[in-house]
């Protein structure tokens, strides 16, 4: 074997080769971490909007809106945000895997860590109202956005599927007038079988939601009336309180 050691030292001296400065190594090392946190930050922002959209929807309407509940739930997924979120989660995973000791951990640990960071940041952003604000900006500044995501308004603007919401204009004994979100006026028919949720107030100016079916182009027969926020159930045990719903004849 030739004298590799002497040859190598000779070459190092001859070509004046030096160890690369440590800052280069540290810059490379931290840039991977920075890229992870940048990706996680964007993923969290996207998550907070998706979470806002999902959390404001009513998820108990499958029977009214769809024959098969799985299609109903699929129709509510905010794909516009879910798709980039999936991509960002993958990027976060690979960034974490690329860190100096990322290879030491198996797939599930890395995936759980990346998801954990995104969820923590995401819920923080959501609780700070970022998702709601971002969704509002998108609604105002991007005209087609409203058609691409399921919002509470779009969910309750499907009279053909039995879901209608709007502002109450006037109330009479067996009906009330309602203007939906597109500005169209409806007559909502109610009778003794109509369930009015306890916190739903049938008063002029109130925004309510109605589940039922269309009678004709301007008339909607309501089976259930809910307030705009939530299901209108009061807190407490449903069976015992007896106050979770009331019918029109029990008002």
């Amino acid at each position, binding site marked *: *074997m*030739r004298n*590799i*050691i*002497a*040859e*190598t*030292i000779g*070459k*190092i*001296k001859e070509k004046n*080769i*030096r*160890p*690369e*400065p*440590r800052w*280069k*190594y540290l810059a490379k090392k931290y840039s991977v971490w920075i890229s992870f946190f940048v990706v996680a930050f964007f993923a969290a922002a996207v998550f907070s909007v998706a979470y806002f959209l999902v959390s404001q929807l009513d998820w108990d309407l499958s029977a009214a809106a769809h024959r098969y509940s799985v299609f109903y739930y699929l129709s509510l997924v905010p794909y516009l945000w879910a798709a980039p979120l999936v991509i960002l989660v993958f990027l976060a995973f690979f960034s974490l895997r690329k860190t*100096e*000791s990322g*290879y*030491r*951990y*198996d*797939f599930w640990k890395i995936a759980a860590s990346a998801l954990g960071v995104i969820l923590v940041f995401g819920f923080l952003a959501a609780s700070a109202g970022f998702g709601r604000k971002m969704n509002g900006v998108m609604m105002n500044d991007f005209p087609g956005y409203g058609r691409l995501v399921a919002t509470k308004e779009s969910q309750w603007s499907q009279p053909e599927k039995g879901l209608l919401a709007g502002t109450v204009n006037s109330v009479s004994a067996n009906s009330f007038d309602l203007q939906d979100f597109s500005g169209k006026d409806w007559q909502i028919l109610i009778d003794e079988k109509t369930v009015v949720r306890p916190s739903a107030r049938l008063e002029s100016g109130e925004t309510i939601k109605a589940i039922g079916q269309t009678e004709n182009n301007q008339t909607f027969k309501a089976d259930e009336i809910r307030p705009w926020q939530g299901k209108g159930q009061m807190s407490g045990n449903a069976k015992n309180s007896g106050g979770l719903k009331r019918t029109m004849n029990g008002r």
Partner: protein
Amino acid sequence: MENQLLNLPENEKSDAELIELAKADPESFGLLMERYQIPLFRYIRRLTQLPKEDAEDLLQEVFIKIYQKLNEYNELLKFSSWAYRIAHNHIVDFFRKIGARPRTNSLEDYELAKLLTSKTDIARDLDSKDCLEKMKASLEKLPLKYKEVLVLRFLEEKSYEEIMDILRKPKGTVATLIARGREMLLADMKKEGIDCFEI
């Protein structure tokens, strides 16, 4: 610190201490090269099967790379794992550059036996030259990712943790690659009718 290190006899200095000295003086790097030139040369040879002179050229390039990256060394790793990692990456780059696959035909016969001995009953009779040649051909067909783990585990006798650090792959992946590599090797030998090991 440097003065304290210089007072120690050379053979008592740890790898980390020698690295510190080598950063300031290339001559001190010679001590590190002395420690690792044989194992690294053997590893390069086993993986590339290049002629001796070419393997020595590759070893020199690996040493220069190690020297250039001295500031990157992380003391949480064994120096040998880190040096093997650099050698491994250099070999992969080398084959990518020349667009060829590593060959296996200069593995020693006893080395081939080592690839099969653990947990198998088939390496009983390695007398037949014909059989060994066929086995080398089977090994040659293995993709590099399987061949390299087999070489590291059974010829370099590295632990799973060391292989994990050398290849930068999770331990589970290393275990899977080793198991699959062996399976593929055995399956191909069976397919080729290599029955001299009583498979």
